[in-house]
């Protein structure tokens, strides 16, 4: 008991200092709200009286599920969290779930048929309303929620007005509120990054690599002394997710931001330098020949667990479980910071998270009781509702630690029915999605040391400032953009690999850049820039 509290305190400190170091801009939550006029709030901030409705109310919610739900239930309404929520609020929810893998098609069919449920969950780049929130509002499918939020969602209202970042992230370019977002008060640090076999480093007397030269030496030794056939298991695009490997050259594989300007990696000089280096690594056998098959974000387990690879990219929560699948008892993988050209360089590319995640719960125009729907959603943002959503029911899924902070119980992370933490979370508390004041730190419970330290290592010296914010393109911009980028993306990915493999000599690099320019990249950059500026101008 004592040990876990100490551990929690330690990790919280680590995380908080990491956030500080990574330049998190979150100010204190209760700073003066910016633009909203508080006079019209007819409900008060804080815990509402329960139940929140006067008669039995039912709402229909359309929401994608995933495998971790279906493990224990057929319908999210069966989860302990929603049952408890119904008990408290008096609102019954009928969930409608699309089949896994067909979410986007199902949403389009739903809208085409004109038969909308009361609440729909959408997430950009996964399942979204074609054209975005503003279009959904102007098409008359989503309700414009600005007034509803002011009057009936005081907790959400306060939260979204707490910082400028949060406010900008929760409204559309036109200033509309189209749905309720998931918000983190503290920005979560990187959960993905470069990883290396620490036990090999120890064995070979190497220090954690810092510069690209260090990496080259290390990979060489991995190959020669440890028999690694693919010392660095590169991702099949030639770039790591969130550009951790190319960060040292100041470029990303696609669009990124530099001092407010949108840039496209392949036409910048750093890109050529990066490819040159990777090509050298490839010819020296430091990157295996099989990297072209490494397609997913999950670590290439059959290379990692069998000692064929000594360095790769991974999720922080998997560092320890990868070990379980290895036959090497000394196996130890740790996070390492992205390499730099020379010591002291600052980096701007890594996996970044924001206060506001883009997924939303929107209320449709077919909802007969929008006021109660809004009040129901707002409950999750009240202190009581938020505690329930993040931690569940006291003494079942959480207990209060000696630091008066809630902490998940063993039922959650040492589950006896063979469920993983993610699956038990789905059963007892609210899963990450939308409409949620999310405390990501709940997942830190019982994370082994190497896992817990990983995010701060990845954030060391790397502020992730190059990541562009979430933008929305209008329908015309969208179709122009995809017409241009459809071709350019194919060209860039194909040629980049050819350069790396040496099938195309780097002397022809200028031709490559000119070709991209002739494919109208400047227009695409302009479209992105306009969208970014529009987003930053949100009031």
């Amino acid at each position, binding site marked *: 008991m004592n040990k876990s509290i100490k551990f929690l305190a330690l990790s919280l400190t680590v995380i908080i200092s990491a956030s500080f170091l990574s330049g998190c801009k979150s100010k204190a939550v209760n700073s003066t709200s910016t633009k909203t006029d508080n006079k019209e709030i007819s409900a008060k901030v804080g815990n509402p009286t329960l139940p929140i409705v006067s008669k039995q109310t039912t709402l229909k919610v359309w929401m994608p599920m995933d495998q971790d739900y279906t493990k224990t239930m057929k319908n999210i309404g069966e989860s302990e969290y929603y049952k408890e929520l119904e008990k408290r609020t008096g609102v019954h929810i009928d969930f409608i779930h699309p089949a896994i893998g067909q979410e986007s098609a199902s949403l389009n069919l739903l809208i085409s048929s004109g038969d909308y449920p009361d609440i729909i969950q959408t997430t950009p780049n996964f399942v979204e309303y074609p054209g975005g929130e503003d279009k959904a509002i102007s098409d008359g499918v989503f309700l414009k929620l600005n007034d509803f939020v002011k009057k009936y969602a005081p907790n959400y209202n306060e939260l979204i007005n707490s910082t400028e970042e949060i406010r900008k992230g929760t409204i559309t370019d036109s200033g509309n509120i189209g749905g309720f977002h998931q918000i983190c008060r503290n920005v979560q640090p990187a959960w993905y990054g470069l990883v290396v076999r620490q036990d090999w480093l120890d064995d070979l007397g190497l220090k954690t690599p810092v510069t690209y030269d260090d990496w080259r030496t290390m990979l060489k030794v991995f190959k020669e002394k440890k028999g690694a056939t693919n010392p660095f298991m590169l991702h099949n695009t030639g770039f790591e997710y969130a550009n951790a490997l190319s960060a040292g050259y100041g470029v990303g594989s696609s669009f990124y931001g530099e001092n407010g300007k949108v840039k496209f990696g392949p036409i910048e000089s750093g890109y050529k330098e990066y490819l040159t280096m990777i090509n050298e690594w490839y010819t020296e056998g430091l990157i295996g020949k099989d990297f072209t098959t490494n397609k997913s974000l999950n670590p290439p387990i059959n290379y990692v667990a069998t000692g064929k690879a000594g360095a790769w990219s991974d999720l922080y929560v998997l560092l320890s479980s990868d070990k379980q699948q290895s036959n090497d008892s000394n196996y130890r993988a740790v996070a390492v910071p992205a390499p730099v050209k020379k010591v002291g360089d600052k980096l701007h590319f890594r996996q970044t998270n924001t206060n506001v995640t883009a997924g939303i719960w929107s209320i449709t125009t077919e909802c007969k009781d929008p006021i109660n729907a809004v009040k129901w959603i707002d409950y999750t943002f009240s202190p009581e509702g938020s505690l329930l959503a993040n931690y569940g029911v006291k003494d079942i899924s959480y207990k209060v630690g000696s630091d008066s902070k809630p902490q998940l119980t063993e039922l959650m992370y040492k589950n006896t029915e063979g469920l993983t933490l993610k699956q038990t979370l789905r059963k007892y508390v609210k899963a990450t999605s939308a409409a949620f004041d999310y405390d990501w730190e709940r997942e830190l419970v019982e994370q082994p040391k190497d896992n817990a330290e990983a995010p701060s290592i990845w954030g060391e010296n790397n502020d992730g400032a190059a990541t562009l914010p979430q933008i929305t393109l209008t329908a015309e911009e969208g179709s122009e953009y995809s017409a241009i980028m*459809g071709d350019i993306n194919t060209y860039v990915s194909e040629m980049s690999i050819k350069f790396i493999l040496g099938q195309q000599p780097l002397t022809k690099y200028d031709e490559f850049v000119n070709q991209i320019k002739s494919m109208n990249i400047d227009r695409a950059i302009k479209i992105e820039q306009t969208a970014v500026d529009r987003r930053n101008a949100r009031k």
Partner: protein
Amino acid sequence: MNWINIKKDFKANKVLYFMVLPVVLYFIVFSYVPMSGIIMAFEQYSPQKGIFGSTWIGVKNFVDFFNSYYCLRLIKNTFLLSFYDLIFGFPAPIIFALLMNEIRRKKVKKIVQTISYMPYFISITVIAGIIIDFCSSTGAITSIVAKFGGPSSNLLGIPELFRGIFIGTNIWQGVGFNSVIYMAALAGVDQELYEAAAQDGAGRWKQALHVTIPGISNTIIIMLILRLGHLMSVNFEKVILLYSPVTYSTADVISSFVYRKGLLEFNYGYSTAVGLFNSAMNFAILLLANRISKKISETSLF
């Protein structure tokens, strides 16, 4: 066709038309009524506005496709992949069926049939996993190929080999199942004809040539016409599982490119337009094949 003939035909064949009515109705309801959706190819489709309410943009989607830098390559890859599959993959089940027909012991024949038909049912993701594994730089097939003087690196990273791997594995997975229809046709060949041929002194080979093959010829022809009708379609699921940017030059086909582009933007109009273009080409080829077949043989679809 004049009015008198039509009346006569209807009188004589009333019952037949009545019998085929449910079939025709089925196609009207489930195929022709939804065909109105083809309009989406000409629209900036918005699900809320529906098929008849979305903005008309004419041939813009088609123009976008034809203007693409890769348009020609995609058409070429789609055609070649499908064409090679036709040349090698079409005869394979026929030859296999003929060979199986020569097995004398019935029991052995049945066992071979059952085993050969199994790989068809293994999910494509598992098959792709096996192929990737076997073709990796340390894979089984790669080592065999290397022994014969071939390249010793990841075979799926070599564009020139993609078609061979794709089609070879198609045959491996499908030859058994696809031979079923020919086995059924072979069962329909009149035994008397064999007896007559044997009496005339024909050996095994001559019997095959003069009795067996003509006996299943109309099945083969119809299957060929249908197959030609799919010339411009490629099983895109398998392509996506096996390709990567290294092999785009031979592996990227129309459907895989449209899929990637579709991930950039949820635009039904574009994919419908390209699909329509594909279908139109396929159908034109089918009509041509049908006409040629009518002239050369007695068999045709219509």
